[in-house]
Every structure is written in structure tokens, then in C-alpha cells.
């Protein structure tokens, strides 16, 4: 059983997106994803200031077991990256929705998130995989 947060949007590739009060979008990977990956040891975030595109590769999360590409749920400029993950990559496992966030985007078009899955949609996607 994995935790799925109701207020987030999700991609079928297991990234989540949270729209913050100031309009930026925080991105991370779901509890299901971190469970599948196992212990995370390296996180490659997009470069600060770079541009990401919705549905395109934006980084990599590498566990002892496997490397997994991270896709951005939205297009825009990367305005923050979680530097704490350099020394504590295990935060992705321990707190995938909070301290384990990966990067923040200033979206060029936040309506792109309407194409993403809501919590129920993501739940179905996860169950279909199992």
C-alpha cells in the first residue's frame, strides 16, 4: 500500500505536482515510486534557471537498484532545486511528498496540469500496474 495525497496531481510515470500559493509548482516522486526504486543514492535535478517542458525528461533519481528518469509535469523555468538531497538522498524515500521534493518550476502555462491525473486517477494507474 502506498500513500497518495489527494491535493496533488500526478503523471503516470509517478511524478507528483503541487501548485503552491505563489503559483510555482513543486515536483517530486510518489510514495509508490520510492517504494519501487528502493534506497535512493543519487538525485540529478534540472539546473537552476534552466527550462523544462511538460512530459520531457528533467532529471534522474538513481537507487541502488536502478536509475529512473524524472519527467516534468509542467513547462517553465526551474526556480529552485532541493540541494539537501545531495547529502541526504534518502529523504526521497523517507518523505517523498515533503522533504524529498525534487525541484520547483515557475510554470509558463499552469493549465498543462489539467492533463495530469488527480489522486483517484493515479490510484487507478498504480493498481493497474500491480
Amino acid at each position, binding site marked *: 500500500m502506498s500513500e497518495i495525497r489527494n491535493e496533488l496531481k500526478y503523471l503516470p510515470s509517478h511524478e507528483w505536482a503541487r501548485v503552491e500559493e505563489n503559483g510555482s509548482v513543486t515536483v517530486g516522486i510518489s510514495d509508490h515510486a520510492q517504494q519501487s526504486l*528502493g*534506497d535512493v*543514492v*543519487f538525485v*540529478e535535478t534540472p539546473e537552476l534557471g534552466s527550462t523544462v517542458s511538460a512530459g520531457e525528461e528533467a532529471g534522474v533519481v*538513481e537507487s*541502488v*537498484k536502478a*536509475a529512473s528518469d524524472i519527467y516534468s509535469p509542467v513547462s517553465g523555468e526551474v526556480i529552485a532545486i532541493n540541494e539537501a538531497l545531495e547529502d541526504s538522498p*534518502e529523504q526521497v*524515500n523517507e518523505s517523498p511528498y515533503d522533504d524529498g521534493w525534487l525541484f520547483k518550476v515557475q510554470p509558463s502555462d499552469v493549465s498543462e496540469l489539467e492533463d495530469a491525473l488527480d489522486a483517484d486517477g493515479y490510484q487507478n494507474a498504480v493498481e493497474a500496474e500491480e
Partner: protein
Amino acid sequence: MGQKTVLYNLHQGAGGKLVDFGGWDMPINYGSQIEEHHQVRRRAGVFDVSHMTVIDVDGSDARAYLRTLLANDVARLDHTLGKALYSCMLNPEGGVIDDVIVYRLDNCYRLVANCATRDKDLAWMAERATGFDVTLNERQELAIIAVQGPEAISKVQSIASHAQANAISGLKVFTSAQSEGWFIARTGYTGEDGLEIMLHNDQAPALWQDVVAAGAVPCGLAARDTLRLEAGMNLYGQEMDENTSPLVANLAWTVALEDPERDFIGRAAIEQQRAQQGPDTKLVGLVLRERGILRAGQNVSIAGGDTSGIITSGTFSPTLGFSIALARVPRTIGTSAEVTLRNKQVPVEVVKPGFVRHGDALV
């Protein structure tokens, strides 16, 4: 739905993530594999290895039979009851059928082989027993529990009977003893001190629970793999297989050629390989100090453009904090090489296979 050891329910109860391993449902981890790894290096971890194959070889020709079957020489056990020997079992072409540990017990030799190779090992051993007065007795009723780490032995002694604790006190490394239903070997697959205990399936759950209550942390197969790789130990099926000579798997030291009268299976092929300047590849260790993880199957290239090297096992080393690997490479390799990771070339150091010893970095 694979085979289950008698500890299956305990693994489930401890949160074990069960996966198929050679036809058995085994725990890959109980939570963080990195934490389990650290526990073994710092204190004590406990592993269920009951899926492995145990075969007792007895009869008046047992010694002679094993001296033909195995590349290492069981005569090395003649002077010490309970002593262990690590050996390859070769085919006539000098390829490795399996790697095993053999113990000399007072009434037989006990051979412990891998799980995935069980059927072919048993068939091969039976076939090669023709003409020898031996019986092969697979001990399916025995469970095997490994307790490994600097505190492993003291934890086992704390829950053992008086006689068992005494037997353990007398154990030298790579020897075994039997006491009150336990076969206790001071052996392991982690590079740490510790014990591997064989006992009847019926007694195994109680031993597991007692050892856990004494503070040994349940550890799964994922931690087992990072531990053995740090220790520079081979895994059959990765570092060697039936098409691999021990001479290119860092196992030349396990092939005993001193007695010219001992004609073991594969001897002629090995001697021929050695005669022609030896094979042109060898097994080395690789260290990647930059970010990234070395993985089995990745290409290794050396100065001069030879790109034939290949990683046989790779992982992240929890003790060292970077990635390590074993690789089969040209003998001419120097002290550095390059590995092709997912989308780039990274520089690696070439070292002897063995990265951590008794918790300390060797690289």
C-alpha cells in the same frame, strides 16, 4: 508462487519484501537495504539462507571422489576436523559449474552449493559418482541462518546453550563444529566475522527469533549483494559461469595443482590455459568516485581503444559512499579505465577485487 523456507512467515511479519530468487520466495529487504548493510558492518545482521543446497557426501570413497570432483583439494582438510574449503566444481572444459564450500565432518563431507544451480549440481555429482563407493544425501530438512557482523558471534553465544556457546568459543575462522543439533560454521558471505548455522527446520524459527531479540537485524538479499561485492566475493552466474575459467574469475587461488597425481575434472583444460602464457583477460575491481552507479553489463574501455571489458557485478557501496564493481577486462589494463554509463563515459580506478575489509576501506 515459489518455494518457501520455514522462516517465510517471520519474514512477512518483519515487513520483508518477498521476491522470487531461484524459485524461492525470499526477502530482498525489510525496509532500507542500506541500513541493513550498515547494521552488518557495525553490529550484527541475520540472513535466512535456507534456500541454498546442502549435500552430505559419505562412504569409503568420499575423499577420493571429492578429490576428482573439485578443483580445490579436500586433502587440505585432512588434519583439521570441521575445517572448510572454498572450491569450484569444474566441467571437463575447465568452466565453472558452481562454487561451493566443503566442510570435513566426522562422518562425511558437507558441501554447500548455490540455490539456482541445485538441479544441475545434483545431477552432475551423481553422474560423477559412478565407480566410487559414495552416497550423496541432500539435507533438505536443514535450515541455514547466517549471523554476520562484529557483534554476531557474541549475540549468538548469548542465546545459545552452554555447550553451543563453548563450541563457538573454540571455532577458528573457516572451521565448524556441531553441538546439540546445530552445525555451526565460522564462515560467511559478507566480509565480516560471523557464523552460519544449520539446524533442523523445526528449530529454525526459534533461533531466528532469539537472534533478532538479541539485537541482530533481519537483512535481505539486496544487502547480501552489496556486502559481498564490497568484500570482493564472486557471485556464481555473474563473475563466473560454465563458460568461465576460474583463472579469469579471480579464482586461480582455489585451484590446487600441487599434487600432480590428483586428476580432477577440468585439470587438463586449466593446465593448458596456464601453459600458453595464461588467459588474456582477468577479473579486477573498479571504483567510481564521481556520481553514478556501475552496473553489470556496462562496457569498460582501456587506454589504446580496447572496449572489450565488461562489468560482471556493480553496485553502490553503502560503506564507501560511491559505486564499485567487478569487471572482466584485458590483462593489459592499467590503473584506470572508462565505463559507459547510461549516456556518458566516466573514469574509474582499477583495483584488486576487494574494497572493504572488516569495515575499513581498502580503496
